[in-house]
C-alpha cells in the first residue's frame, strides 16, 4: 500500500480533488507525513475521512440513492459468496475455490468502497433480509443453493449477470459525475469478469448447461427457468435505432446470436429490486 500513489491516482481520476479539499490541504500534508510514522492500521480511518470530506458532503441525493442501491446488491453478493465458501463440501477445491474466493474478496471490497464513498449516508447491512440474514433459497426456489454446487453456480450466474445489468441501468443517472461514474463502471466491468467466469465454471460441470458461454446469448441462456426474468430484454438486437443483424459481417450480416452477445442490456432499478426481493433485499 502506498498512500502517495493513492493520492496521485485520485488526482488523476479527479483533477479537482485538491480543490475540493483545499481548506484542509495542510491536514492532508500532515496525514501523508504521519503515514510514514504511524501504524498502517490507522490509515483506513484517515482515508475514509478524506473521502467523506471530499465527496460525502457534496453527493446529490440522486447519486446517494444509486450508490445505496449498488451497496444493497454488493451486500447480497458478498454474503452469498461468504456463505457458499463456508458451506461444507460445496465449492470444489482447485480452480473453483480460487475463482469463488476471488469473487468473494472483490465483492467485500466493493462493499467497503461504497460505504466509504457514502460515509454516513450508507445504509446498514442489518436493514437487509431478516436482521441482515438473507434467504438464498429465494423462498425455496433454489432450495439446494448451499448443498448442491450446480445450484450455487446457477444462483451466482443470476447474481453476477444481474449485477452487470443493474450498474448499467444506473449509468445515465451519473452523467457529469466523473468520480462516481468512473467508479461505478470500474465495478461494473469487474462484475462482468465474474459473470463470464461463473459461466465458464458452469460449462465445465458434468451437470451444467451444455451450451452456456461466457457471454449472454439471447434471453435466458442459463438452463434454469427460475432465472427467466433476470434475462428479460437480453435478446435485443437493436442498438440506438440500428438493427445490428442488418449490418455487414465477414460472411453476410451479423448473426442473431452475435448481435445479442455483443451488447449486454441494462435493467431498471425497479426491475432489479423485484429480482432480488425474494432473497431479502429491501
Amino acid at each position, binding site marked *: *500500500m502506498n498512500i502517495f*500513489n*493513492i493520492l496521485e*491516482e*485520485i488526482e488523476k*481520476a479527479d483533477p479537482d480533488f485538491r480543490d475540493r479539499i483545499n481548506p484542509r490541504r495542510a491536514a492532508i500534508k500532515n496525514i501523508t507525513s504521519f503515514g510514514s510514522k504511524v501504524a498502517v492500521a490507522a490509515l*483506513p480511518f484517515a*482515508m475514509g475521512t478524506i*473521502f467523506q470530506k471530499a465527496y460525502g458532503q457534496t453527493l446529490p441525493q440522486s447519486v446517494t440513492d444509486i450508490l445505496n442501491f449498488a451497496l444493497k446488491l454488493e451486500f447480497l453478493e458478498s454474503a452469498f459468496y461468504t456463505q457458499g465458501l463456508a458451506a461444507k463440501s460445496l465449492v470444489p477445491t*482447485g*480452480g473453483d475455490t*480460487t*475463482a469463488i474466493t*476471488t469473487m468473494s*474478496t*472483490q465483492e*467485500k*471490497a*466493493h462493499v*467497503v*468502497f461504497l460505504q*466509504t464513498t457514502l460515509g454516513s449516508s450508507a445504509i446498514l447491512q442489518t436493514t437487509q433480509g431478516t436482521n441482515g440474514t438473507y434467504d438464498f433459497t429465494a423462498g425455496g426456489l433454489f432450495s439446494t443453493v448451499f448443498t448442491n454446487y450446480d445450484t450455487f453456480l446457477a444462483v451466482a450466474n443470476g447474481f453476477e449477470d444481474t449485477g*452487470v445489468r443493474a450498474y*448499467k441501468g444506473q*449509468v*445515465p443517472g451519473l*452523467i457529469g459525475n466523473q468520480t462516481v*461514474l*468512473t*467508479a461505478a*463502471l*470500474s*465495478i461494473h*466491468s*469487474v*462484475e*462482468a*469478469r*465474474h459473470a*463470464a*467466469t461463473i459461466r*465458464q465454471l458452469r460449462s465445465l460441470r458434468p451437470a451444467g448447461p451444455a451450451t452456456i458461454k*461466457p*457471454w449472454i446469448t439471447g434471453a435466458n441462456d442459463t438452463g434454469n427457468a427460475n432465472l427467466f426474468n433476470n434475462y428479460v430484454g437480453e435478446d435485443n438486437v437493436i*442498438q*440506438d435505432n*440500428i438493427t*445490428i443483424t442488418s*449490418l*455487414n*459481417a*465477414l460472411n453476410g450480416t*451479423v448473426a442473431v446470436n*452475435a*448481435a445479442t*452477445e*455483443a*451488447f*449486454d442490456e*441494462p435493467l431498471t432499478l425497479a426491475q432489479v429490486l423485484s429480482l432480488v426481493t425474494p432473497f431479502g433485499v429491501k
Partner: protein
Amino acid sequence: MEKTNTQTNHLNSDDSGGQKTGMERRTFFKYAGAGAAILGLVGSSCKKSAGNSPVNKNTVDLGSGDTGILNYAYALEQLEAAFYTQVIAAPYTGITAAETAILTDIRDHEIAHRAFYKAALGSGALAALVADFSQINFADRTNVLDAAKGFEDLGVAAYNGIAYLIQDAVNLTIVAKIVSVEARHSAAIRNILTTGTASPFSTFADATVIQPSALNNVANPYNGLEVSRLPSQVLPTVNQYITVNLTATKLP
C-alpha cells in the same frame, strides 16, 4: 495463411477483414513476443506509459465531444476486429475446439461493435484504419492469447476511463453495453490461459487489472475496482498496431 500475409486491406471492409502483415517471416519472428511485452507493460502499470515515437506515420485526430469519443471506440474495435479475424483465419498451432469457439465468438462480437460504430457515426466516422500486427506471431498460442488479453484489458480500461466525458445518455449506455462484453472477453481469455496450469481460474480479475482487494488493504479507496485509462495513456499502444498515428488533442 500465405495469402493473408500479403494482403493490405482496410480494417473495416467487412467483406475482407484484411490487414497488413507484409513482413518477412524472419522479421515476424524477430518481433514475436515484443507485442505481448508492450501490452503487458500497459496492462500492469498505473503509470503513464512512455510514448513511442511514430516514424513516417500520418497523424489522424479523433476529434472532440461524443463524436470524438465514439471514434476512439471505433478505432479500438477496428483494431480488435482485425486482430481476431486474423487469429481465426490463421489459427495458432495446437488450437483446441473450445478455444476456436471462444475466439470465433469474440471475433464476431468485435465485428458487430465495429459495424455498429461505423453506422452510428455515419459521415462523422473515422477513416478505415489499417492494422499492422507484425509484432504478433499468430502461429504461437501464448503470443496470440497474451495479445488478445492485452487488447481486451486495454479496451475495458479505455472505455471505463473515457465514459465520464460522454454527454449523451444513449451514447453512454451503448458504451456501457459494450464494455461489459469486453470484460467478459478478457476474463474468458485469461481463463483459457490458465486452463491446464497449476493455478486455473487465478487471473480473470487479478491485480494487473483490478486494484488490490486484500481486505487488509481497505485504505485503498479503489479496492476491487478495475483500472481505467485516458486516451493519452491508451493511444501509444494502439498506435503500435496501426499504420497511422492517432491523436486525441481534444480529449484528455
